């Protein structure tokens, strides 16, 4: 009986293996942006893409957690991360494998892992989204420090800094301002009654609805709201100061991936100029990292943006420490 059961299970497993070529992709990039790219790859190569998207909105237990949980026997081949920090966390947990893609030629190396555990491509930027009915043209906030400006007391918002790109922003503030100044800045945010919302999408909605004059979010949220006809606009903050934080995508090969060959092909496709072009022209409105690839019409090219000078690899350790300590306490006190 036991042998029969084993044979049956083996048969089912073998039958599952006999299917068409496939690649399993976990993606923390919004489903509406990631899926068209995956479908295009599938059409070109005939390799079936099984996409598992994530969500920031309701604080799901998260794909990074699922990847860590599955570390011993991964189901995933590629993690397409919406930011390099989550990719770096996978490296620190031993979940990722090194892969130096030939398609990465032309991509600036400063956004990627020097040991090739993740390679970055198309980027978003952290922006200030403001309500055009509530903020006069001459008063538009130009710096993230305006969040702490008493002039805007109780009228600004940001997402929970424990999650998503806002967590990366917080780590970048600590990295660039230094610990003491960053803690003082967070204290100033508290004093200025900056409202903490559940996600960047919520920041977009609440600013568009006029609940807040301005907030901190990502380019795709701001441009998406403008495309829907909401009374909002955005600025790249600190262009005459420290610079704007850029949030590039990152492609990660999973260690022990069940389909390593198709995984490499998919990563090569993600890093190609074609994908950068597609992400720039789609609703994702992402800025290509590669010079010469046309960017979205509503954003300046990378060369014209003053980027916040951060070491993305260092942000990982910084963020892990902050999330377990200061940020966790600060966020829970702000509720």
């Amino acid at each position, binding site marked *: 009986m036991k042998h029969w059961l*084993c044979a049956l*299970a*083996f048969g*089912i*497993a073998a039958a*599952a293996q006999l299917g068409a070529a496939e690649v*399993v992709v976990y993606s923390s990039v*919004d*489903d*509406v*942006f990631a899926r068209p790219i995956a479908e295009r790859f599938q059409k070109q190569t005939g390799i079936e*893409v*099984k*996409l*598992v*998207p*994530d*969500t*920031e*909105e*309701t*604080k*799901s*237990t*998260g794909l*990074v*957690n*699922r990847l*860590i*949980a*599955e570390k*011993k*026997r991964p*189901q*995933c081949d590629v993690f397409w991360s919406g930011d390099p920090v989550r990719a770096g*966390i996978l490296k620190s*947990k031993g979940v990722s494998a090194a892969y130096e893609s030939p398609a990465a030629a032309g991509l600036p190396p400063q956004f990627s892992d020097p040991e090739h555990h993740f390679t970055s491509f198309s980027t978003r930027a952290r922006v200030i989204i403001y309500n055009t009915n509530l903020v006069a043209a001459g008063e538009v906030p130009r710096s993230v420090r305006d969040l702490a400006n008493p002039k805007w007391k109780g009228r600004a918002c940001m997402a*929970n800094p*424990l*999650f998503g790109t806002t967590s990366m922003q917080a780590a970048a503030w600590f990295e660039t301002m230094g610990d003491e100044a960053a803690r003082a800045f967070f204290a100033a945010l508290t004093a200025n009654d900056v409202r903490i919302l*559940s*996600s*960047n*999408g919520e920041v977009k*909605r*609440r600013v568009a*609805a*006029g*609940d807040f004059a301005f907030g901190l979010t990502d380019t*795709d*949220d701001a441009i*998406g709201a403008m495309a*829907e006809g909401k009374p909002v606009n955005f600025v790249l903050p600190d262009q005459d100061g420290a610079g704007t934080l850029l949030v590039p995508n990152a492609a990660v090969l999973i260690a022990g991936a069940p389909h390593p060959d198709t995984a490499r092909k998919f990563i090569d496709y993600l890093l190609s100029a074609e994908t950068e072009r597609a992400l720039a022209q789609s609703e994702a409105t992402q800025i290509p990292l590669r010079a010469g690839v046309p960017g979205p019409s509503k954003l300046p090219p990378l060369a014209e943006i003053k980027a916040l000078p951060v070491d993305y690899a260092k942000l990982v350790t910084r963020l892990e420490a902050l*999330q*377990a300590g200061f940020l*966790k*306490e600060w*966020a*829970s006190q702000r*509720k």
Partner: protein
Amino acid sequence: MGLPAEISALPATLALAASAVALGLVAGWPAGVACGVFQFAGRRLALALLLLPLLLPSFLFAIGLSMLRLGLRLPDVAPFSGLTGCVWAHGALTTSLAAWGALLAVRGISGSQADAALIAGGEATLWRAALRLAWPSALAGALLGGAIAAGDSGPGVLLGWPTAAGEILAAFAARYDFAEAVRRSLALGAVTLAAALAVARSGAFALETAVTARDPSRAFARRVSPFGRTAGLAVCAIALLICLLPLAGLLLPLLRATDFVRAWSEVIRTLGPTICYSLGAGLIACAAAWPLAAWAHRRYRRERWLLVVMLALLALPAVLPALGWVRLANAAPAVLDPLVRGRFAVALILALRLLPVAFVLALRRWSAMPRSWRDAAALHGVPRIALLRRIVLPHQLPGIALALGLVALLAAAEVTIVLLLHPPGAASLPLAIFTIMANAPEALVASLCLCYVAPVLLAALALPHAFSALR
């Protein structure tokens, strides 16, 4: 260093759960009794609306409330956010459970009992007696809803009210510590379980009385009267305000734009897995519940204890069995992946979560089968197989069909388990809505919500009819 966040959030969690229970009792208890005692225009629709919170995930109610407020350009204050917003979102479930609990209890009143009450003091006496009779079931339903609310993080996170479950989720998502999440979920589960056990022990007798329909006498005919019509208006208002209004917020963007083409492609992509998970869960739950109920029915101690266990099982956070299964699947040999990491695994864990629903219906169906049939078969030497095939199975089939349908609908609405366990490329429709709603255009989200809510509403309209046919 202060207390862990999930401990410091316990008072807020208890305040939320207690308020949701109170709302459930104030609105659901009389609403259920009115639906049981009176016949009025809109009764069927009101019952369908009162079923919706059981069939739709709570995050839809929370997001609907938020979108309703934004759509109506109302300020970010009560009753749309904070504690009151969460109470509204969770109160839909407690109201629904209290109302259905009360309705089930009231429908146990026989025609002669109702006549006696009417002769003794008219309609007012019948109404008071029905309220008294329905109280334990309504209370058990509302408390169960409160326990479920305490373990549900969604509305709290979305509407800005700190709960212990939300803090656990936040700690997990931020710290990537799987073992810690399991430990904390177990701790919260223990609190919820203790509360649920207390509720279940006190409510099990009432529930047992309500579900085991042993009284073969005719049920009383629902009354038509001016008081009944007024009560009916109040029931419709409760159902519209608590259950439908938040969902209307989800659909408001459709007034400006629609995107049914993309929504339809999402529906097509997710339809197969959704049906597979939900029907699979229904089949597995029925396969487990019917033998279990057969073993327990008419043995009252067993019945009651099993009901206690089932109610407690229903009150546990959904994330617990899912996390446990992820661990188990990772430890299993790779050859078993199609079983432990495939669609079957999702259906199995959903079935385990919803087994109590199937069990209650199975118990009700077994109890409605007269003992004399079995005695007569034994007397005439009818073989057991023939008895099962010719008598028992045809009698049980309507109940099995109803349980399968109800479990399937409830399983389709479950997001947490599917999120953690679904095999790559096989998301369900609610999970697809859950994952795209943050950044997709409003028109797409609203169109998708309509594609989901409309069939569920139709099913909700049919379910009370199917349930009454079981009597």
